[in-house]
């Protein structure tokens, strides 16, 4: 069983379109001087109608993670362990992701991480995964 893929919506289309170009575009609310993730129509908290798209470099730190030895769903039964992670972007928001190119024992909360753009063959969609940053 393959993992469910994201289906872009009228609200989120710019994020997924640019991710296919291996760039990260998220929303920014000038009235609150804050980046926003995931994409919305109005700014969370203030409901300001001023969200604009801005490119970020996607650099960040590992906020938390787990090494799942039991699959979280049938699609991952043959892909264990799962390295489920939350990355805190330098831009502010947090994002759910998976870690790649790292041994489970080498994962440390707070470590610097960098984006890995994973093109899904035949699906026309790119996923945003993370690995330890090259320093």
């Amino acid at each position, binding site marked *: 069983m393959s993992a469910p893929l994201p289906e872009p919506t009228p609200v989120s289309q710019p994020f997924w379109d640019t991710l296919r170009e291996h760039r990260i575009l998220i929303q920014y609310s000038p009235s609150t001087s804050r980046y926003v993730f995931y994409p919305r129509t109005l700014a969370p908290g203030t409901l300001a109608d001023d969200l604009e798209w801005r490119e970020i470099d996607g650099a960040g730190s590992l906020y938390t993670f787990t090494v799942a*030895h*039991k699959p*979280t769903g049938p699609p991952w039964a043959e892909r264990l362990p799962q390295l489920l992670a*939350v990355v805190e972007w330098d831009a502010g928001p947090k994002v759910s992701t998976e870690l790649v190119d790292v041994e489970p024992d080498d994962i440390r*909360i707070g470590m610097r991480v960098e984006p890995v753009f994973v093109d899904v063959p035949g699906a026309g969609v790119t996923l945003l995964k993370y690995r330890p940053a090259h320093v």
Partner: protein
Amino acid sequence: MTGLRGEAAIVGIAELPAEKKQSAPPSFTLDQYARLAKMVIEDAGVDPGVVNGVSTHGIAESTMFAPATLSEYLGLPLDFGDRVDLGGATAAGMVWRAAAAVELGQCDAVLVVMPGSTEIPRSETKPGRTLSWFGASSNNYGSPQAEFEIPYGNVGQNGPYAQIAQRYGHEFGYDAAALARIAVHQRENACAHPGAVFHGKPITVDDVLNSPVIADPIHMLETVMRVQGGAGVLIANADVARASRHRPVWIKGFGEHIRFKTPTYADDLLRTPIARAAERAFAMAGVSRSEVDMASIYDCYTITVLMTLEDAGFCGKGEGMTWLTDHDLTFRGDFPVNTAGGQLSYGQAGMAGGMHHVVDGARQVMGRAGEAQVADCNTAFVTGNGGIMSEQVALILGGDR
């Protein structure tokens, strides 16, 4: 402050024995509602005609119009019909809403019962519903989880709770044996409670630490087992309470706080909504933490219990691991928690798992916990927890002195 005056009470309780494999034939949720309703009404020793309120989280047979369907099916005209959608906090959320409706004089007695059996008769002509592995996540088009969580495998409960535990360890340190003691003490409580699925099966800290790691650092014996069951209470005004059979369990305070759906988007993963909810509940009830005789803490995982004890103010933030090693959580101990085993050792009967804690608290204040009875139990602290510590409810229950 405004709030409840403590003039509505739990007057009847019911909890079906937890079963891994159900002994009774399959039963529609409508019929499960009816049987649980009969149990709580008979437990209270009142006439069914006194019931004129119903709170429900839904009916498997009807996606909408749940209170009206129940009113019709049970043959009980309602002055209060409510539907609550707070995951594992639903039961505690129902209790304070029902108490508020009673105190407002809108109704006299409210059924707050929760079926917990998935053994439902299957149609021969309509295709059966297949249980989705998406669990509490929605894979519907446009759902944030469908787009930004599920594709990365962030689905279900084990992963995110383990992420919370990892972050806790990073900020405050982690003592796996201290957390294991929660499971061990609750198992000891279950061994004094015949309805628990793990009655008669004590465990040790080593058993917990040697059980398989599900999602690091959570072990299998720190997670709940799905069982078949069901639980509920009847909440009534003082007149009905006086006419009822048992010591009334007054709902003296509550708090509720909702922050997010997916913990990735929490402002602070380690300061949970129960902090605000508990503060309000204690203030409303005019009760201090030291007056609590027992606590029934929503325990989907051991880390949930630890963080609830901290955030509800029973010990300092980040001090829970030490606190746990200094306290005895069994029914004989200095701080009894989940005296019927909790969901870890009684079993989790689906949505009724949240009701387990309400019934646990009420049973103790009524003085009906049998072998597991806490001496002189007058004040119980009960929590509900929905999602991934994303929506939480605190209740203070108390008996007349």
